């Protein structure tokens, strides 16, 4: 057969290699800063763009998209050309991919630090950059599929299945999650509201882990590990089974990020079961990697590269075991919102992504430059320091997580929170936060060691930018399956078919979970008391988003007694219908804020408290680790886009168009009337400013701090006001009753509030006895009933709080229940009433 001559594009690989190293160092350095800021809050420097809330997204984005992103392109561009025996489809697309991606990273770093963010984790970038990402990502995919089409080999190798799946899934995820309406060039609102936004975001967030941090790295593993070990891949059949099961199941597991939160039960269940089913497919990748090393283990001792691969693949196995375990509701109840999550992702990030990348680069760069690695010893050192650093990073965080979550949930003997003060639980784990900085520093030091080693290697060799290669053209084979060909083997030679099957596999999970959340109303029961944000609160909310408050504060109370006691009522789906985007967060470095505006609640703080606290948290609480926000006090609110914001919100269905009379900001034609918006803004802001001025503060209504305080006071406000109104209505009802005359209706209300929990809504009994039958334990006369109410009986607690009238009403009501024999009644107890 005639051999064709062609050239591998090595230059593009070289560029991606350098970018990987550069952004790796930057990303880790920013991570170190973020970790140090938690341990030593003064490192926030009191400047907006150096504060944790903005630094943390830079770290996560830099590591995920800049470091591992460039590593993916390095691995893909090197291996695909060789696996397909073809140069990349288009040099232009290769360059567009490279330079476009670096531009995005640069823009990301600048805009995130400047506070332009959507606040959707790992998708924080604003809409113009989202569009750029889509363009560059598609140029990568186009280039890949183009190369596949002009390939010279018949079948496509498993590494490329994984690259293909990554391309298809990330494209779908990125576009799906980034549907937003621009307000200005730097600001947009997501089209999804509240619970829907949460589901879409974590469908994305979870699968960014899947299809950005997992599948492309499995692709890298399947090429570089057998190459470095010079061993055949252990099992082709395992490749098939774990590939398809992995990409299909992964897409369903997103809701495990939202367990016990305001999410319908069915969605939570799907998140749990698919996460558990994900265990074996994930381990399939690990096992195929580790078993490929059979017969090569003796070389692992000396080879830094193989050591990186072994620990990397093992870390993958550990994370993918831990992941499903964390998705069990019982475990999640303990782990979520703590540093457990942070430790978990760093085993994955440092171990799997980091070590696989380091191993790949140590193998690849000498080959690219036709030379030997300058110092195998240094690479070995890097491995050991990195491994030790990773342990010293994660173990303290696991420890911190266990400590803190148990403190959050501990009750005293009399049933009250043992640590009602959130700060106590933070102070307790500060030593762990300091230790993890040391661990992170070691890991970073290892990466730094790599740089001179690589520079020396590069200098000692030379690169052939266009490397000559030879291969025979692809043979024409029948389109249909040929005899003896398995269906999978058949699809392996049909690249476009293969891509379509991937699309089908990945799309199902998301559709099943997201579509009902948007179309079926019963998934998000409405709460009438919940009102939209006022313009001032909306502006405050946007500041909250801008500062990345969600990186440390959640806004969703889970239905646990330890949380309802600490924060107040647990969060319901209907509370978030006006939230574009949702702000539930995923970590509680500080306390939950969902009830920060709940009047009469444990989390409510007066305006003046917020004022002092934002200005200098350490002055309020010496040991607080919250950064100060002095610029809130200098910055005048930017209302130039407020009109547009209201317009966008109307488009998204927020009733600013007259449907809610108190929030009507439109004129007769239905257009937003800015004077109404401005008036509402100013009236509310002046009220808060006056309150602060009365306390001697020098502040005007147009400062950002005012909007921030208004937003804090909105969180949970509506349902608390509804509760208060109910309570007052009940009180006045009881008072209106003439003394001596019993009021059954008032008695029924008391019964519903104080008795129904134990005696059932209709008196059918439960923990307490059945009050609707003809039997009584402690007597049925009004004197007997009064005695039981006031002094308790058996397990029934005394209720001394009631007034005489209330007792009379309640007693009359319970007497009226006798003989009603409600459904599902508890068995009779005591004596029959004659």
């Amino acid at each position: 057969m005639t051999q064709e001559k062609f050239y591998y594009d090595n230059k593009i690989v070289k560029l991606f290699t350098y970018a990987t190293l550069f952004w790796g160092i930057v990303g880790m350095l920013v991570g170190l800063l973020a970790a140090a800021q938690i341990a030593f809050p003064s490192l926030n420097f009191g400047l907006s763009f150096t504060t944790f809330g903005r630094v943390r997204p830079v770290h996560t984005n830099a590591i995920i998209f800049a470091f591992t992103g460039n590593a993916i392109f390095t691995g893909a561009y090197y291996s695909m050309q060789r696996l397909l025996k073809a140069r990349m489809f288009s040099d232009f697309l290769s360059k567009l991919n490279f330079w476009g991606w670096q531009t995005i990273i640069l823009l990301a770093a600048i805009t995130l630090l400047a506070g332009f963010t959507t606040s959707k984790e790992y998708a924080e970038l604003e809409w113009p950059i989202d569009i750029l990402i889509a363009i560059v990502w598609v140029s990568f995919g186009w280039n890949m599929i183009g190369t596949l089409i002009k390939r010279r080999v018949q079948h496509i190798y498993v590494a490329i299945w994984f690259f293909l799946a990554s391309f298809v899934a990330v494209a779908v995820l990125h576009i799906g999650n980034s549907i937003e309406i621009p307000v200005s060039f730097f600001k947009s609102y997501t089209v999804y509201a509240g619970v829907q936004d949460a589901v879409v975001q974590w469908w994305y967030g979870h699968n960014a882990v899947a299809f950005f941090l997992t599948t492309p790295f499995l692709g890298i593993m399947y090429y570089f590990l057998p190459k470095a070990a010079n061993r055949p891949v252990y099992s082709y059949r395992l490749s098939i089974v774990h590939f398809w099961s992995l990409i299909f199941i992964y897409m369903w597991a997103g809701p495990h990020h939202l367990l016990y939160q305001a999410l319908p039960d069915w969605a939570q269940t799907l998140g749990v079961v698919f996460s558990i089913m994900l265990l074996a497919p994930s381990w399939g990748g690990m096992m195929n990697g580790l078993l490929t090393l059979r017969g090569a283990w003796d070389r692992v001792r000396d080879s830094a590269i193989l050591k990186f691969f072994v620990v990397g693949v093992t870390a993958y196995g550990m994370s993918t075991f831990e992941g499903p375990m964390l998705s069990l509701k019982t475990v999640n109840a303990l782990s979520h919102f703590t540093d457990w999550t942070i430790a978990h992702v760093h085993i994955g990030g440092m171990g799997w992504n980091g070590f696989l990348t380091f191993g790949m680069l140590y193998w690849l760069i000498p080959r690219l430059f036709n030379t030997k690695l300058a110092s195998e010893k240094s690479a070995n050192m890097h491995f050991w320091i990195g491994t030790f650093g990773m342990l010293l990073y994660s173990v303290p965080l696991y420890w911190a997580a266990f400590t803190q979550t148990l403190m959050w949930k501990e009750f005293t003997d009399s049933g009250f929170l043992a640590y009602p003060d959130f700060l106590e639980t933070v102070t307790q784990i500060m030593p762990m936060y300091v230790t993890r900085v040391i661990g992170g520093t070691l890991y970073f030091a290892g990466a730094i060691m790599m740089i001179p080693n690589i520079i020396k290697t590069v200098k000692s060799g030379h690169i052939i930018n266009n490397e000559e290669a030879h291969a025979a053209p692809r043979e024409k084979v029948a389109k249909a399956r040929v005899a003896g060909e398995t269906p999978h083997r058949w699809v392996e030679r049909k690249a476009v078919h293969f891509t379509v099957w991937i699309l089908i596999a990945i799309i199902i999970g998301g559709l099943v979970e997201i579509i009902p959340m948007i179309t079926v109303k019963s998934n998000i029961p409405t709460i009438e008391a919940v009102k939209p944000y006022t313009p001032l609160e909306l502006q405050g909310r946007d500041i909250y988003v801008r500062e990345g408050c969600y990186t440390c504060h959640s806004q969703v109370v889970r239905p646990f007694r330890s949380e309802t006691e600490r924060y107040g009522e647990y969060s319901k789906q209907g509370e978030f219908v006006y939230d574009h985007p949702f702000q539930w967060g995923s970590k509680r470095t500080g306390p939950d804020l969902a009830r920060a505006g709940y009047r009469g609640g444990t989390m409510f703080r007066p305006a003046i408290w917020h004022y002092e606290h934002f200005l200098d948290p350490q002055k309020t609480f010496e040991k607080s680790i919250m950064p100060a926000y002095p610029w809130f006090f200098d910055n005048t609110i930017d209302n130039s886009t407020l009109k547009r914001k209201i317009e966008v919100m109307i488009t998204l269905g927020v009733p600013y168009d007259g449907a809610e009379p108190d929030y009507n900001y439109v004129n007769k034609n239905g257009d937003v009337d800015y004077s109404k918006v401005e008036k509402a803004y100013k009236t509310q802001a002046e009220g808060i400013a006056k309150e602060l001025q009365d306390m001697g503060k020098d502040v005007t209504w147009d400062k950002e701090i005012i909007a921030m305080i208004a937003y804090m006071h909105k969180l949970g406000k509506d349902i608390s006001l509804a509760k208060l109104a109910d309570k007052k209505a009940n009180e006045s009802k009881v008072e209106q009753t003439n003394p001596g005359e019993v009021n059954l209706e008032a008695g029924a209300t008391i019964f519903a509030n104080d008795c129904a929990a134990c005696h059932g809504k209709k008196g059918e009994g439960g923990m307490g006895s059945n009050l609707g039958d003809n039997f009584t334990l402690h007597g049925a006369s009004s004197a007997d009933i009064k005695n039981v109410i006031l002094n308790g009986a058996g397990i029934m607690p005394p209720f001394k709080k009631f007034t005489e009238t209330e007792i009379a009403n309640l007693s009359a009501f319970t007497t009226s229940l006798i003989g009603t024999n409600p459904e599902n009644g508890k068995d009779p107890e005591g004596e029959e009433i004659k």
Partner: protein
Amino acid sequence: MENKNIDPKEVYKEYNEKFDKKLMIDHDYDGIKELDNPPPPWLMWLFYFTVIWAVWYLAWFHWFDMGRLQEADYQHEIEEAAQKYKVTAMDAETINILSAEEDLVRGSEIYKKSCVACHGAEGQGGIGPNLKDNEWIYGKDISKVFGVVKNGTEKGMTSFKSIGDEDILKVSSFLLKKL
């Protein structure tokens, strides 16, 4: 697909007799070969087990309604706590101010932890009002102070009900006796 006639030694210099019996010789990707080993059976069984478990879990919670879902789980926890702790609210009307030294010491500890941020280290006031002077906005007797600490006020005092009635009484006694 597999071709047992080909000698793997020709393909792989480091051929390992013990493992590589089933080399798939027509699978060659840039020199990478694949073996025709079956997936490890234990891994497949693990997979089948998780699938069965998933079906069981779904059925348990959503078809047979045997398990407690979120809301029910919470109600259960509340009921359990009510039984376990027999939490009885203290009656603000009938409580008595505490004067035992240990109670007041405990009260001062709570004050340091939870109150100084707003009322100052000496009770001189700041964010919240002065507690040292003899003026009590909501009344001077223990039941009023107790009520304010427990339930907060509309003006902005935070509710401290989560610290428990006993500690509320101790800190309230401390406020009245020592400041």
